[in-house]
């Protein structure tokens, strides 16, 4: 048999290919055009268009995959792609989400640029790297084979290493980039070593096959595969910033430029959890207590750590760790509830939670990046004081985002939390659910600290502080209204997930 790239493979990879072609186009354009306002808008526009194209292709695919779709039954993947890539509703949804998050963070980054910066010249490279991020994440998401997963992971990470250290002139950004790179590479080394052991144990590298081996409990006697599996999981925990492996998150989130923090906090976490989902069958029952411990630790460390923060980005970093903990609760419910009736509920909870958390975190960090250029002090809680009066719109968006992160009813965050706890109750893990929901109450404190700073305290200066750039403003208000709309009518989002199975 010969390996040829059939048209169906091309169709399946379309959502990822759009950003790739977009990136290449932008790269060439950036070289050819002389730097100026026109070039920049072209570059920005092109990258946004490519992302949009990717999203539309993804949506078309998702509709095609719906059982109710009139066309012939599910198409067969080409020989090249079949052993390596999943093509199921939830993977398509995952890639749509990733593309959407990148699109929004690109829009938000519009407000972040300032003439005088030294990095201003590297406008094109910023867009290229940002475009590569969803490609890497998409590959990681759909990977059935560890090799493809590793490639996706690396594309994703390397583009982020550079983006984090993008503001070469400021030590914080470079130091954050360096730390992220070194620890990221450290994690990647674990990934490699883990996959090596798995390969040694089972002879091939594809995840589902591994699942069958490990499913009936770890092979007795203790083999390389199990050890490799454990190390692999650790690499993913690192990427998803789950408790004992979370140390890099606060520093890197604080150091990195705000739009990149937004992208990273939502994108990498989603990608890591997607791989965890596809490796779910890999999930030996013996590991359940470990996952419970990690979930509890993440919620505790995340929420407690955020209580004492003054810098808003660090605070959101810790809240990210806590939310990783909640995701782990849902993930565990999915893994435990494998056989039960409605196994899909946990997966739907995970996807819904990742989407809502993504939008909310983007909105929160977006507001910061929107105003950061005008008043760099805004990033700290002190600087935030009195924003309610100085810029009511930004304050309202930040308040809605904070309430949604806290899970207060009229916002989408509430339904996300509802799904998580419905899943964990369905899986019968009541004590963990009780602990998680009480942990979220601790979390309430620092979200309210944001509200206190916004509305209750009077800031030093009281002149109105307008955001930097209309586009960003529009995207932010879109995100905020989406949060409220889904909060009031969760139907819009939930029905999309209705027939999602693992």
């Amino acid at each position, binding site marked *: 048999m010969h390996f040829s790239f059939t048209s169906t493979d091309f169709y399946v990879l379309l959502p990822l290919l759009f950003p790739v072609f977009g990136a290449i186009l932008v790269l060439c354009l950036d070289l050819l055009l002389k730097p100026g306002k026109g070039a920049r808008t072209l570059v920005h526009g092109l990258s946004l268009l490519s992302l949009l194209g990717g999203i539309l292709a993804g949506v078309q695919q998702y509709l095609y995959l719906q059982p109710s779709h009139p066309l012939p039954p599910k198409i067969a993947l080409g020989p090249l792609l079949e052993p390596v890539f999943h093509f199921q509703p939830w993977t398509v949804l995952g890639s749509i989400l990733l593309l959407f998050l990148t699109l929004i963070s690109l829009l938000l980054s519009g407000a972040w640029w300032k003439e005088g910066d030294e990095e201003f010249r590297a406008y094109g490279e910023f867009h290229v790297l940002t475009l590569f991020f969803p490609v890497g994440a998409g590959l990681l998401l759909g990977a059935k084979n560890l090799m493809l997963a590793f490639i996706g992971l690396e594309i994703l990470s390397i583009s982020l290493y550079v983006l984090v250290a993008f503001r070469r002139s400021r030590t914080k950004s470079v130091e954050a980039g360096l730390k992220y790179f070194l620890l990221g590479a450290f994690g990647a080394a674990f990934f490699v070593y883990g996959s090596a052991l798995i390969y040694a144990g089972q002879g091939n590298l594809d995840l589902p096959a591994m699942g069958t081996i490990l499913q009936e409990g770890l092979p007795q006697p203790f083999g390389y595969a199990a050890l490799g599996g454990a190390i692999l999981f650790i690499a993913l925990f690192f990427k998803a910033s789950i408790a004992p492996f979370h140390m890099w998150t606060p520093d890197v989130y604080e150091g990195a430029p705000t739009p990149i923090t937004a992208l990273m906090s939502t994108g990498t976490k989603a990608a890591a959890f997607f791989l965890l989902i596809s490796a779910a069958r890999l999930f030996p029952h013996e590991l359940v207590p470990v996952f419970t411990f990690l979930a509890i630790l993440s919620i505790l460390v995340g929420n407690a750590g955020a209580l004492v923060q003054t810098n808003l980005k660090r605070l959101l970093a810790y809240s990210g760790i806590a939310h990783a903990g909640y995701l782990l609760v849902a993930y565990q419910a999915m893994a435990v509830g494998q056989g039960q009736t409605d196994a899909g509920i946990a997966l739907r909870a995970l996807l819904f939670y990742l989407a809502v958390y993504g939008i909310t975190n983007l909105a929160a960090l977006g507001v910061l990046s929107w105003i950061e250029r005008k008043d760099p002090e805004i990033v700290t809680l002190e600087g935030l004081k009195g924003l309610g009066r100085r810029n009511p719109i930004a304050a309202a968006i930040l308040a809605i985002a904070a309430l949604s992160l806290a899970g207060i009813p009229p916002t989408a965050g509430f339904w996300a939390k*509802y799904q998580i*706890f419905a899943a964990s109750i369905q899986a019968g893990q*009541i004590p963990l659910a*009780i602990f998680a929901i009480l942990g979220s109450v601790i979390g*309430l404190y620092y979200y*309210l600290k944001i509200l206190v700073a916004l509305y209750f305290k009077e800031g030093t200066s009281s002149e109105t502080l307008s955001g930097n750039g209309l586009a960003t403003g529009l995207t932010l208000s879109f995100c905020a209204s989406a949060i409220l709309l889904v909060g009031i009518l969760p139907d819009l989002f*939930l029905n999309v997930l*209705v027939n999602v199975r693992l």
Partner: protein
Amino acid sequence: MDSSLSLILTFLPLLGALLVLFAPLRGSDEGSPVLWRLAQAIGLVTFLASLPLWTGYGPGTEGVKFLFSVPWFHIQTLQVHFALGVDGLSVLLVLLTTLISVIVLFSAPSHIKKRAREFLFWLLVMECGMIGVFLALDFFTFYLFWEVMLIPLYFLIGIWGGKRRLYATLKFFIYTVAGSVLMLLAIIFLVRTPLALPGNEVPVLTSSILDHLKYLHLPVTTQYYLFLAFAIAFLIKVPTVPFHTWLPDAHVEAPTSGSVILAGVLLKMGTYGLIRFCLPLFPKATLFFAPWLMVIGVIGLLYGAFLAWAQSDLKKLVAYSSISHLGPIVLGTFALNAYGLEGSVIQMISHGVATPALFLLVGMIYERRHTREIAAFGGIAKTMPIFAFFLVLTTFASVGLPGLSGFIGEFLIFVGAFKAWPLLGAIATAGVIFGAVYMLSMVRRVLFGPVKHEENKLLKDLGLREVLVLAPLVILFLWIGLFPGQFTSRTSKTLAQIQAKVLEAR
């Protein structure tokens, strides 16, 4: 028109709130008088709209009236409705809410000086939340309004409160949410357990409270856990003794209108929830926990009275007095007989009328003397006779002088408690003494005795506006005190059903 009344009642304040927020008036920070008129008009219209409830739900009616139910959204097989409706238990409380809101709207201008527009917005949103909670007949609707009710008060205390307002409001919010979060878990559990409805053979998922009230049958141990989850949330809200420490701080730091609404309506959420959810949904658990909760009620009664006696701050004293007045309600509810239940509902209304009057009076004296230390007063009756008249009358009402509202509630509760547990009923009547001790000693130190401080000599007595604000409350003292039949007859049928549901599990 019949079913849409509850919809109008709930969303009228919300529309009003948005109207106030975006009204084009260039009001100064203090808020232009037109803005205040607008808000007061909205409050009045809502109150008038709630009057048909009183006539519509006449004496002896039974079951749910003014039912409004529209499909809201569905999560997989669970179809959630946005359901509102009135029954015997909630009709009086909704009327109390609209009345107290009108009173607050008319009494607020005197002490809300800054950011009036936002104040009115939050006040009206809160009224919508409160009415929503009382009318909700679907679990999700109930929880949505439960939280919508909390956020405004958080802002009310946080922005317009006293010195330690941030600590107080944060403590109040987190304490209440911690409780209601456990309730959320219980609600999720209930909503996820399929219910065998008569219509269809296979059990189906539903989130409507009415179906759950009729057809929910749970094994005993699950009933225990769910009962605890709901009960803790409501006992925090009541508040009963171990969970009460948030109330004095919240009251002392809240502005007068905040305290009035908090004492008038919000504390009733707890007791309302106990009767609406804990009793009928988990009958076996109720029977098991009833004695414990009756003891907690009596402890609340005596402990609250003792604490109130030791206070030197006027508002704190009134705050502890409301803890002491809510203890009997828990006692009456868990006496599980007609007297206890109806006594509790009457005591809720009477407390919801007496304590706001007390807080208004404390607010009025605070506006004149800017201090709440009882020691700073003395001989006020000389310079402010009308104030003295109202304070003494309200004290008599809250101490439970027969002929006024306090007595009816307390007497019925004592009868009910005595029937259920004679010894405890006898101990509870001791509350009658301590109630008188701390209230009367407060009245004596404030009103009577020679005028020691110079400032007290030139205090201006209550104006017409202030008297008009207090008048409806005083009228209700007498109305409930002399004609309780009109109130008990409206609630007796519903409470009898709840009691029957609990006792059939015996």
